[in-house]
């Protein structure tokens, strides 16, 4: 641990004190306000040490088990027979009495088990195949170059808005075969999908449903255009023509669109912002990268670990099971905290530190393991790699001038905005 980090650990720390003062059985690591404040770490540090498989009886999301150690998370992730992804992989508040689900029948392949999951996943995976990435690479580079060339010099701006959102939205619009002028609809819809009403993005459940109607209508039109045309190689065309997906219900199609929107945009967007933030916080690592650009792929993996753009994935026990000495009952909710697994010092040395030349930087749990492992992981890495290659050609430094504003979510671990200044070009 760096001297600064050690000092921070020793100093007065109300968040840490609160985490350790709470009786263990009352500990609730899911509270989104802790993630907004970047103060969730202490709960997870305590859980890994004292109760690595832990039950929270009461929370805004109902009762749930937390799995917080790297190897335990992997064990749950690969045992899809015992730990099902159905009906959903994100913690959501339970319905109030008398409330009915407003998106009845919504389904997506990340929240399905084999064999149905397998055929739907395979229908879309060609979009991110090595062959397709070779085609996408030059396009991403051209766009990254244009975005970076257009940035102001010596003037404060929001990196999230001007770079991370722009580039990832452009890529996703291309994958969907959408007109580029509609790309920022995708970033907005992505934020709405994961937003809890009442905290900024949307105010009410009704408002959220209204936005979903526009989102759904937009993609219904895309489907209708593709289904009656020859296959065009974009994701919508693939879904509309593949025998495994062409007869999906409208809600199943919409669910998969949501999955690809969030998975294809939000995660890379936030890791791209995280890379600038982490390097700015760790000038020694930035200097190391500048001195040896061959560290770039390793820096990309380390950033994906350090950022952990999705904090958790949720499972449902399909049977009573004893796991690490705990009795998990059939239908219990089990939450794998990736954000905690990536800080487990039993597997990752000095896990709180950002070290771009780690011995095994690809050893992280951000992409998950098993059949649901991130389908777009190579596209994510490619975008990060390219944007940094282009940054390093242009700018000797990017200064983060204020703490970023973090997303209030226990699922999306990201940044709403981050003010930066680029002092000069080469």
């Amino acid at each position, binding site marked *: 641990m760096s001297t600064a980090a050690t000092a921070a650990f020793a100093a007065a720390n109300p968040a840490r004190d609160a985490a350790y003062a709470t009786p263990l059985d009352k500990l609730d690591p899911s509270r989104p306000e802790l993630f907004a404040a970047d103060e969730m770490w202490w709960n997870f540090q305590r859980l890994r040490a004292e109760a690595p498989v832990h039950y929270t009886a009461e929370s805004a999301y109902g009762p749930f088990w937390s799995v917080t150690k790297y190897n335990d998370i*992997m064990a749950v992730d*690969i045992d899809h027979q015992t730990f099902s992804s159905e009906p959903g992989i994100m913690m959501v508040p339970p319905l109030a009495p008398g409330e009915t689900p407003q998106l009845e029948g919504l389904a997506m392949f990340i929240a399905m088990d084999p064999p149905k999951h*397998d055929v739907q996943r*395979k229908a879309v995976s060609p979009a991110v*195949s090595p062959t397709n990435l070779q085609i996408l690479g030059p396009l991403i580079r051209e766009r990254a170059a244009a975005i970076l060339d257009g940035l102001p010099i010596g003037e404060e701006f929001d990196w999230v808005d001007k770079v991370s959102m722009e580039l990832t939205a452009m890529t996703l619009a291309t994958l969907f075969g959408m007109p580029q002028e509609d790309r920022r609809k995708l970033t907005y819809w992505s934020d709405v999908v994961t937003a809890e009403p009442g905290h900024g993005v949307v105010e009410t459940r009704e408002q959220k449903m209204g936005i979903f109607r526009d989102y759904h209508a937009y993609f219904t039109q895309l489907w209708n255009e593709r289904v009656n045309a020859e296959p065009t190689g974009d994701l919508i065309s693939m879904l509309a023509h593949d025998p495994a997906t062409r007869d999906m219900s409208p809600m199943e199609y919409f669910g998969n669109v949501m999955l690809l929107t969030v998975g294809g945009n939000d995660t890379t967007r936030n890791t791209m912002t995280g890379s600038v933030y982490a390097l700015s916080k760790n000038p020694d690592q930035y200097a190391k990268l500048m001195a040896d650009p061959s560290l770039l792929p390793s820096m990309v993996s380390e950033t994906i670990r350090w950022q952990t753009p999705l904090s958790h994935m949720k499972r449902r026990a399909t049977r009573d099971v004893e796991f690490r000495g705990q009795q998990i009952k059939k239908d219990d909710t089990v939450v794998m905290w990736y954000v905690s697994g990536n800080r487990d010092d039993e597997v990752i040395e000095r896990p709180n530190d950002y070290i771009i030349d780690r011995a095994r930087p*690809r*050893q992280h749990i951000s992409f998950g*393991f098993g*059949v649901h492992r991130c389908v777009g992981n*190579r596209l994510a890495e490619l975008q990060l790699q390219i944007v940094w290659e282009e940054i390093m050609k242009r700018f000797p430094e990017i200064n983060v001038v204020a703490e970023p504003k973090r997303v209030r979510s226990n699922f999306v671990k990201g940044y709403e905005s981050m003010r930066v200044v680029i002092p000069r070009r080469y």
Partner: protein
Amino acid sequence: MATIVYVEHDGTRHEQQVTDGWSVMEGAVKNGVPGIDADCGGAAACATCHVYVDPDWLAATGERTDQEAEMLNFAENVESNSRLSCQIEVTPALDGLVVTMPESQH
């Protein structure tokens, strides 16, 4: 000990002495042979140690495990001789085994 022959996608050959009990994946990663990522560290939980087993060695290396087959189901350019190299344990019987890497691990 067994000599394992790792052939990169471009044809570059690496002959490595590998300790009995290690996996074919470990024999590559621990000796710095490029082309195998092994993100999950050897649990058949990703598919980034994908190799093609030389047809002469298929009987000696055995069958895919269920979980391995599940992960290979989502890998790229899978052939009938595709294996996850973390699931092949090195024994003296595998002395001379030839495995070839795919173009990229996915």
